[in-house]
């Protein structure tokens, strides 16, 4: 037992050492943490209501009262940025979790069980062939109202958007995971495990899952970025959240017509999206290097 704990702690140390070596990942991680903490805890310090239109104070520049100015209806840009970040990042995270979960499940099943491979991969092809935007439009049209009635308009749309993005973005993950599993399955250590009587479940859990972590993490980081961008596109088309609900994508599209007069309104949400996506990508890069047993051996 103590042995195992000690083993665990050296592994953690090893991981940290490895991760620290990747400077970009370290910076990415710090930036992402700052953004997440900022949008989560920021509203507790900066208590202006992001939805309140203080119409007399519209189109204001930078001041102590409004550090990033106000928009065309007098709403505080900083408060809106934080509120928008909450929704955008949570949509991104949740959609990513859903799509990675689905992708892994289908990819592992297809790679590991020969019988399932054909049907599952054809299903993946089918989803890849579906045109994304029309599909999203249909999903929105069919389920928007029933959901918004049962769990409220904003929660309803949140669930719907997460679902819509998740259900349409798991395919690349599934393909990559399947490929990795197919390769691993034939390796000696898996055969050995099978020979000593390990069950399918424990092989998948103990041996396969840790070895396919790196492509999954890469997919996951890219997934967050894609999800944030897809949400922006939906908001832009008027199919996402209601027009008064702040998200980074919505703020960006609202601000485009004021771009020349008030560039700050495009700049801040644009910067927030870019920084988040970039930092998450670097973070993923570093995590992959640190977690991948093969890369570890190379670097030792």
């Amino acid at each position, binding site marked *: 037992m103590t042995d195992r704990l000690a083993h665990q702690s050296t592994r953690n140390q090893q991981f940290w050492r490895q991760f620290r070596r990747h400077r970009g990942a370290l910076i990415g991680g710090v930036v992402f943490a700052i953004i997440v903490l900022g949008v989560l805890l920021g509203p507790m310090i900066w208590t202006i209501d992001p*939805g309140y239109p203080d119409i007399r104070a519209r189109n204001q520049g930078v001041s102590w009262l409004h550090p990033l100015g106000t928009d065309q*209806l007098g709403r505080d840009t900083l408060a809106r940025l934080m509120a928008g970040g909450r929704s955008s990042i949570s949509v991104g995270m949740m959609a990513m979790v859903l799509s990675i979960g689905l992708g892994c499940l289908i990819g592992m099943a297809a790679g590991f069980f020969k019988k399932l491979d054909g049907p599952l991969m054809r299903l993946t092809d089918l989803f890849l062939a579906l045109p994304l935007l029309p599909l999203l439009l249909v999903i929105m049209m069919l389920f928007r109202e029933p959901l918004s009635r049962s769990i409220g308009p904003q929660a309803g749309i949140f669930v719907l958007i997460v679902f819509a993005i998740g259900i349409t973005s798991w395919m690349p993950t599934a393909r990559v995971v399947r490929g990795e599993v197919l390769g691993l399955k034939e390796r000696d250590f898996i055969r050995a495990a099978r020979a000593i009587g390990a069950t399918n479940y424990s092989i998948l859990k103990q041996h396969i899952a840790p070895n396919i972590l790196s492509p999954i993490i890469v997919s996951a980081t890219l997934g967050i970025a894609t999800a944030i961008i897809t949400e922006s596109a939906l908001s832009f088309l008027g199919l996402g959240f*209601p*027009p*008064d609900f702040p998200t980074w994508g919505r703020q960006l599209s609202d601000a485009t017509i004021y771009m020349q007069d008030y560039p700050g309104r495009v700049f801040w949400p644009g910067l927030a999206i870019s920084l988040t996506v970039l930092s998450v990508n670097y973070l993923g890069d570093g995590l992959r290097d640190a977690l991948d047993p093969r890369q570890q051996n190379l670097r030792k």
Partner: protein
Amino acid sequence: MKALLHATAAVCAFGTYAHAERGSDGQLNIIYWQAPSTLNPYLSGGTKDLQAASLILEPLARFDETGALQPWLATEIPTVENGGVTEDLKQITWTLKEGLVWSDGSALTSEDVKFTWEYCTAEGGGCAQIEKYGGITSVETPDNQTIVVNFSSPKPYPYTAFVGAQAPILQKTQFAECMGSNAVSCSEQNLAPIGTGPFVVSEFRPNDVALYNANPNYRDADKPAFANVVLKGGGDAASAGRSVLETGQFDYAWNLQLAPDVLASMEAAGKGEVISGFGTLVERIMVNMTDPSSDLGPERSTVAHPHPFLTDVTVRKALSMAIDRELLVEIGYGDAGRTTCNVLPAPEIYASTANDACKTQDIAGANALLDDVGWEKGADGIRAKDGQRLSLLFQSSTNAVRQDFQVVLKQWWSEIGVETELRNIDASVFFGGNADSPDTFQKFYADVEMYANNFDGTDPEAYMSNWSCDQIPAPENQWQGNNMPRYCDAAYDEMALKLSQTASLEERAALAKAMNDMLMQNFIMIPLVDRGRVSAKSNSLGGVILNTWDSELWNISDWYRIKD
């Protein structure tokens, strides 16, 4: 080389002097950010479709920029004085100009005019302009040039049928097979009608672009100055404005509903100018008197189910009282708007002053009003009575100014304990009139909706009849009515009928005012802003006269390119 230079100079000189020649000014580029979907004005209520068709199809008479009637295909405006209208006001006689021909070369005769009436009033046709032809019992054609229209009852204002961009003349030969329920399936005809106007359609892609060439058989041999017209649809108001005012890609952009400072900064680029005029365009909130709940299936938003709380006049009144209209004008329109408390704000003689109290915001008063009738605020600040919460779904078309309005209105309504969910729908869907789409303004699957509407011409009779019971959109009439609030009051219908029988202008004005007051004091519609029409034209485009009483392209045959 020298020869070439001479040739070029000659061409230039020729171009300058020959600007009165047909087709000498090349191509005219027009952008409508709502793309036209049909060129048959009888099958669409959309302004974009009417105006796109107005290059081709022409009425007997139309309105000029002052709101006065001008003879167009007719020789003169028939009146009682000149004998064109009988003393009993039941008959009007139009005379066509001599020698009019369709763009295919065949002659325009009174038969075509008669056919147009038959076409619009045919059973099952779902004609969108049917109110223009109300009360006509027969149309006679004693000879090729004369049209005699008989009305069932005295028609004091007979200038609705065959007048204005909404009721132009169709060619009988072309549309003969398209009567009644065949109307919609005649896509070849609807997408390329033959007309008498200055242009003929050469290609039309619905919801995208319309291409026109000068009509070789147009009655004025020197017009139009442009050889062809590209009417591009789609995009949004901001990019349309930019394409005329900043980049100069287009010559004319229609209906630029943009924030005033945005428009001003675009104009500063110096490629074009913003033109505006006040008409009868009122941005208003329509209140749904029927239940839009999706539980009701095909019966939602039909008169079978009254609305759970908007049928209470105090709620509607409170919604109106909470609004600061001055501020809305300031945010959305600047000089291109003014506050109004009437749905009928112009011409002057029809404008009521009885409702002007709405110009001041009164949130405390609205709260007191709702308290008095038992709408109690709950723990979440939202009022409720007998388990019914005051919760609205508020829809509008996608447009920066409208979304800003929605946000501000939501804020004001939250201050009187009304919860609002906002929705915005792409404008070409919202106003598209597609009976299969659930998101059109006619279907009105929401509690309140906001858009602007107006009427052609100067007489409000047809416009005011929009809110009579038989104008309620329903599945039976393919959702084609104009009575969006689904308001139905026998007293109102009676006044509408009386208006259609009254001749004296003063009495007509008094009646129209009374009808407006009835709608306003019942808060069936909540008027917000009287909007000027704002369009943009490039500096090189001449002859444009912005007309708020008819199609904006009404005098396109007179437009020309200004040469340096």
